[in-house]
């Protein structure tokens, strides 16, 4: 490296500034001189807006300050990362983070875990929604739990997806895309064997497990790329989960009206498996507003005793009890119900559970 008066296209260098707050800089900003300031920023650079959102929570709530520091530091070299504090009654303090897309989300999560040695719970990702409330207010919603109840109209982001597959799998890909509310655009034979399929899909339908499904239905051959094209109105519903009558914010989701019942049912079934039996019956419900669309009951435990305990095994029995106690401490308390952290991830792979 050597000092230089100017940098031209194709060159790489650095500038030392007196800037104190690095978060005010973004990739694509235009650098200009004080004496002869440029009238306009250089054309072609857009401020990228995050489209995919997820809640990040430390597994151990004591790690919250570490997560905050890690995000601050990550943000220094990843200007596209967006985050704001979020409080979930079930998962405690964490952050709602916005990502450019799925790959970005994956990378951020990996970096937080590897470079910053954090143990995270990542909630099911969702997209940004533009909502017009009955009161005529326009809001952008990043978290299903914040979706207003009185809605005039909801818009969701759409993507233009290009999928390349061997021709034998065209049928399975079309089937998958139809399930995901995809609209077929066109298809091209790239060669005798390889086909390019172009679809329009709601981003919300691919953030969960679309890629896994695509890969598994094409024996791994499909390749997938997408661009966000804009927002469109959708018939969307907010599905809430109630455990023993208490709504659990971290489990709310926004789904298309046609899939709401199936999703609610799958979620409730899954939770029944994930939540251990308690000392009392625990109803698990999925509801749209005040209308319950699915319900299961986790039956109360009928026995939970250490069969025998005499002088020779008091220590062992005590340790068993201590382990049982420690297991309970790792659970999150929802009302009087102890819910394991895994249950909050149930929403991530609802289809996976059926396989």
């Amino acid at each position: 490296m050597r000092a230089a008066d100017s940098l031209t296209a194709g060159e790489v260098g650095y500038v030392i500034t007196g800037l104190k707050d690095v978060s005010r800089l973004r990739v694509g900003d235009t650098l200009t001189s004080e004496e002869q300031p440029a009238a306009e920023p250089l054309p072609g650079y857009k401020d990228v807006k995050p489209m995919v959102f997820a809640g990040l929570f430390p597994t151990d709530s004591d790690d919250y300050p570490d997560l905050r520091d890690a995000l601050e530091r990550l943000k220094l070299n990843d200007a596209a990362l967006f985050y704001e504090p979020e409080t979930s009654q079930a998962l405690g303090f964490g952050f709602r983070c916005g990502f450019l897309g799925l790959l970005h989300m994956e990378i951020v999560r990996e970096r937080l875990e590897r470079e910053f040695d954090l143990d995270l719970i990542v909630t099911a990702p969702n997209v940004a929604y533009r909502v017009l409330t009955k009161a005529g207010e326009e809001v952008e919603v990043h978290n299903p739990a914040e979706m207003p109840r009185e809605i005039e109209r909801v818009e969701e982001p759409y993507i233009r997806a290009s999928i390349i597959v061997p021709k034998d799998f065209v049928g399975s890909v079309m089937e998958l895309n139809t399930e995901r509310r995809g609209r077929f655009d066109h298809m091209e034979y790239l060669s005798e064997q390889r086909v390019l399929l172009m679809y329009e899909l709601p981003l919300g339908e691919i953030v969960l497990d679309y890629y896994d499904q695509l890969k598994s239905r094409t024996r791994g051959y499909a390749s997938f790329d997408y661009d966000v094209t804009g927002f469109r109105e959708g018939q969307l519903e907010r599905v809430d989960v109630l455990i023993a009558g208490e709504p659990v914010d971290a489990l709310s989701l926004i789904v298309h009206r046609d899939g709401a019942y199936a999703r609610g049912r799958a979620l409730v079934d899954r939770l029944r498996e994930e939540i251990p039996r308690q000392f009392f019956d625990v109803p698990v419900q999925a509801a749209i507003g005040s209308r319950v669309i699915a319900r299961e009951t986790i039956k109360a435990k009928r026995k939970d005793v250490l069969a025998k305990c005499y002088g020779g095994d008091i220590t062992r029995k005590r340790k068993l009890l201590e382990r049982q106690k420690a297991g309970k401490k790792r659970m999150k308390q929802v009302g009087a119900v102890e819910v394991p952290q895994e249950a909050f991830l149930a929403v991530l792979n609802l289809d996976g559970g059926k396989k």
Partner: protein
Amino acid sequence: MSGGGVRHLYVHLPFCASRCGYCDFVTVVGRSGQHRAYVDALLSELALERELLAPRLESVFLGGGTPTFTEGAELARLLGSLPAADEVTVEANPETVTPELARLLRERGVNRVSLGAQSFRPHLLSVLDRRAGPDDVRSAVYALRDARFDNISLDLIYGIPGQSAADLDADLSNALALEPEHLSCYELEAKPGTRFTHAHGSELARQAEAMESYFEHVVARVTAAGYRWYETANFCRPPHLADGRDLRSRHNLAYWRGRDYLGLGIGAVSTIDGQRWRVTPSLGRYLAALAAGSRPPRELEELPPEVREGERVMLGLRLDEPLVLDGLEGALDGEALERLERLGLVRAEQTAAGRELALTERGRFLGGGVTADLLA
């Protein structure tokens, strides 16, 4: 702490005719040539520890292994040399109880026999690798009665792979028909690492749901027959059905009430003055040390006050009598206590004796989980 010496003595007799698959106690199969040497070693160990004991013992308990598998002459010699106690219990396997053995036990001061019946169904006994058949249990009880034993306990195991609700019912009927003074009913524990778990673990997991109601059924049947459910897994005839006698096992009550006890023999555990130790489980090392006149190797565990308090709660809540919380408040999670009270699982009361805690009837069926919640 033990105030004038320990009043409860456990003696371990490890010898067995064969090993049962589900058992994880310290046992030694056969080796009749070593019975004499082992009893010698026990008596030397007793001499070494004698000063820990109170002048008068409340209870002596001979457990195993199969104490009654020990050669008669050696068993008699041991019993004759042990300190006297109000309650002297010997564990016995039914097939070992002959009229001669019953007389021998009685003559040597034994006043309580705990018979490992386990089941009366031949197919279930064979799953458990038990040698005795249903008729052996009956003839053992008759032999003991003939020898004037008026305090007999039967052990039953439920939750055996393949055991139907009807099997369990038949076992309970058979056991109750023998009119024992005391009954212990244990759910089969598939302990990790045993041959049994290896062979039957997955089958047990499959049956878990069907067998969930067995514990309730056991308690319902046995209490309906007039017995007192005085500990999670133990029942006895109440005084009005037993000439005014309190038939709870005094020795085991000592464990559940957190009393100190001395254990002799391989693998035996003692808890005295906040220390717990376990004698080596190795027969060879045990015999060698005592033959040389020294204490056998032991594994020591310090019990700090908070651990002892936690154990007092864990053990005390197994009983049907309330636990006096005097000095134990620190071991409890106050919030959990309130929640469990609201759920109708525990009851806390202020009495003349102080603040007392007890499980409700439903709480007793969930005692393990409730205790885990309660402990701070």
